[in-house]
């Protein structure tokens, strides 16, 4: 996984960001105005390993902020900002403070947020919440390929939930997504 140090190195030449990180360290609530403007202030070019400049800059702004600011940035974030927070979560030393953010994202009907909550940050979700989240992906048509540690975490109870869902779909004359069927088969074999 990409580390904060790697992101720092990539963006070391971005003078505006360097200056803003200094401002945030001095006055933490300035992050509230800088975080939303990241794309316009620092750029949006691709960097490394699927990170763009604005996402990486946002991760560094969060890393320079106290946990209450991280939570506020998520609370007031638009979708792109919330996605950036979810992406940065595994890199931030905020422990279980991250869980309510994941739960918030999973409550939405926005497929991008639901998918992002099941990335690496989902390691903090308990198994019951995680199973419901995976089922929600199947229901919403979110590809399961993005679910972090899917093969490892998928278990019997998830198989039972998917089986019942497949029956409902069949009764309605509707198809199950192929990735969900494959997972169901795999769990039956286990």
């Amino acid at each position: 996984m990409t580390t904060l140090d790697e992101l720092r190195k990539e963006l070391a030449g971005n003078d505006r960001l360097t200056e803003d990180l200094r401002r945030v360290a001095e006055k933490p609530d300035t992050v509230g105005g800088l975080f939303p403007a990241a794309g316009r202030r620092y750029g949006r070019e691709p960097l490394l390993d699927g990170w763009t400049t604005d996402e990486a800059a946002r991760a560094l702004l969060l890393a320079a902020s106290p946990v209450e600011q991280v939570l506020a940035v998520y609370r007031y974030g638009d979708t792109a900002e919330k996605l950036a927070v979810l992406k940065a979560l595994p890199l931030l030393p905020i422990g279980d403070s991250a869980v309510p953010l994941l739960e918030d994202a999973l409550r939405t009907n926005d497929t991008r947020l639901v998918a992002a909550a099941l990335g690496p940050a989902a390691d903090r979700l308990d198994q019951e919440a995680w199973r419901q989240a995976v089922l929600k992906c199947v229901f919403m048509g979110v590809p399961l390929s993005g679910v972090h540690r899917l093969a490892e975490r998928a278990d019997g109870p998830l198989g039972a939930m998917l089986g019942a869902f497949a029956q409902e779909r069949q009764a309605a004359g509707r198809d199950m997504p192929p990735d969900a069927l494959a997972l169901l088969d795999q769990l039956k074999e286990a």
Partner: protein
Amino acid sequence: MRIFDPHIHMTSRTTDDYQRMADAGVRAVVEPAFWLGQPRTNPGSFTDYFDSIIGWEPFRASQFGIRHHATIALNPKEANDPRCRPVLDLLPRYLAKDGVVAVGEIGYDSMTPAEDEVFAAQLALALDHDLPAMVHTPHRDKARGTQRSLDVIKESGIAPERVVLDHLNEVTVAAAREAGVWTGFSIYPDTKMSPERMVAILREFGPERVLVNSAADWGKSDPLLTLHTGEALLKAGFDEDFVDRVLWRNPVEFYGQSGRLDLSDVADAGPTFAGNSILRGGS
């Protein structure tokens, strides 16, 4: 016909409306923050509403191929409720968003001292955040409200070409044009303006600095009245380029002044306007 509705409250509309709008050629909308039928009583109601028009609503619009931007403000009616005033302190967070292309709707409802104060404070926020301003003219006492709005705009120091004065009609259009602001017209089934009256105004004043919108909301309104205005213009002998200017290029020009208008995913969005990028990050 490609249509950009520069003022429509999609929160109050159904998915059927989105489908009909997409079928009619609507490819972009701006949703201004405004009041709902039921008055709100606390800042949390506003932030949830703002979150909706910068979060859920753009997502919903995107499913119909429609690009959605928002304007954010404390509206004049609710500015009169002291319980809602703390919203002003939360606005800077929202005015920093990529999807927010103006401060609005601001202006007057009943022309109270509280409205004076909040109107001026939000014009100052527009200047601070380098955003255009969208100003609603009152439904009652409109002529006096229009003149007073123009005075406050002038006093604020914001450039008139960065302001649209909305819900104008035959009585109020001349003063707005003279002041150099953009002139907005809301086409409604019964009240405000009709497509035929709009044709007459465009014939008299031309297409410069004119925005035509449906202002469709939770009241009796119709999101396709932009299309019907375009059709009425063609029927009256205006050419397609004229209609495209009024219904597409003008709103792109006005909101493009924010530097945040992102039409990169919209089919046939056309070239950037006068070097003012309409692509993401073009400020």
